[in-house]
């Protein structure tokens, strides 16, 4: 009789699920090894069956979370690229225009002349700004709404909230904000500059608008003659 089956051979049989030829010959002769093998396979097999059945039942009982997978459609891809381009251009404009505005050479006299303002001058400035506004935005409804005196004479103030909202509204809205004379957060709210450099207002506006126009894919229409008094 050949040697009895070792533990390693038993493990191999469990793993492989079949017995080597040498072992098979021995099992035909040795009743003890045969019973040991069958008992081992039965214990291991039944244990794994119970484990697999329980765990699979448990796993199936676990609720599957809802999978929200975004499936990009062809139409979505079509509008996404121009929208991304517009957004990027608007972001560039928002960075470049304020920086440019801050570095204009006429920014320094603002504080110097601010102390000399009075109500009549402010009213005159606002009348001028209204005429500029009408010339730039002949078709805009807000142009006819009147211009209120601006009480802020400090340096230009830019609201992050307003700028973010401008992005969301689109590049065209950014242009409107440049041209709006007395909006709450207008880029042109500082009237002393206009008082000291009336002749430069329109040129300044045109320069800014054309600069934005270079980077924004929108159409800017300037209408009407230069305002009176230049």
């Amino acid at each position, binding site marked *: 009789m050949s040697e009895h089956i070792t*533990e390693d051979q038993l493990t191999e049989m469990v793993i492989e699920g079949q017995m080597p030829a040498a072992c098979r010959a021995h099992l035909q002769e040795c009743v003890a090894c045969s019973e040991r093998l069958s008992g081992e396979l039965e*214990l*291991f097999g039944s244990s*794994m069956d119970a484990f697999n059945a329980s765990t699979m039942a*448990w796993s199936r009982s*676990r609720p599957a979370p809802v*999978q929200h997978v975004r499936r990009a459609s062809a139409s979505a891809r079509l509008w996404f690229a121009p929208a991304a381009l517009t957004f990027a251009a608007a972001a560039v404009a928002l960075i470049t225009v304020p920086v440019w505005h801050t570095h204009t050479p006429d920014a320094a006299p603002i504080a110097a002349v601010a102390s000399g303002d009075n109500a009549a001058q402010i009213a005159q400035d606002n009348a001028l700004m209204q005429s500029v506004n009408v010339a730039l935005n002949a078709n805009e409804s807000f142009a006819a709404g009147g211009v209120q005196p601006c009480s802020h004479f400090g340096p230009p103030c830019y609201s992050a909230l307003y700028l973010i909202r401008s992005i969301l509204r689109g590049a065209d809205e950014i242009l409107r904000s440049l041209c709006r004379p007395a909006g709450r957060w207008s880029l042109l709210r500082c009237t002393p500059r206009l008082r000291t450099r009336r002749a430069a207002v329109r040129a300044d506006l045109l320069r800014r608008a054309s600069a934005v126009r270079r980077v924004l894919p929108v159409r800017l229409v300037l209408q009407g003659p230069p305002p009176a008094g230049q």
Partner: protein
Amino acid sequence: MQIAIDTPMMAQGRQVSILSELDDIDSLVSLYRPRVLRYVTFSIGDQDLAETITQDCFLKAYNGRASFRGDCAVSTWLFSIANNLIRDQLRTKKFQFWRKAKATAVDVHEMASFLPSGASGPEARLLAQERTRQVAEALEELSVNQRKIFLLRFSEELDLAEIAEATGMPINTVKTHLHRAVTAIRTRLGGKA
């Protein structure tokens, strides 16, 4: 393990079939999620983390379905993705902390009670629950690699070559881990003297 592809035409047809199968993420999840969740749960021993990894696994599979070549079964591919996620997770300190805390460890007793109600009587059910608990506890004592390979072999019924592919290990390493794991489980079950 390898899907037998005799002709280019068959290969193309098989590829199209697999890709269309992968395109339907709902079917993919309903078909394979229980297996993947069970495998991940017992591989890392953490229920909550296993749910997260399983979800990530399907999301990753869906997003990367174009890269699936079709040269192995979908389940093998999913298990390989799960293995990568498990490996990444095991490296994090957060996982090591929660592992020590055992806050969300697998509840073996709860799991054993999930035995489906078959024709067996109460005694047989009790015996089956006891064996389930023994196997689950024995699995906890194995190393992560031994546990993963044991589960892939005896729960997911992958052959050695498929396990090697799913785990990224050489087949001889797989055999070594499997041999040690089976020896340990047998000892725990009382079959080994």
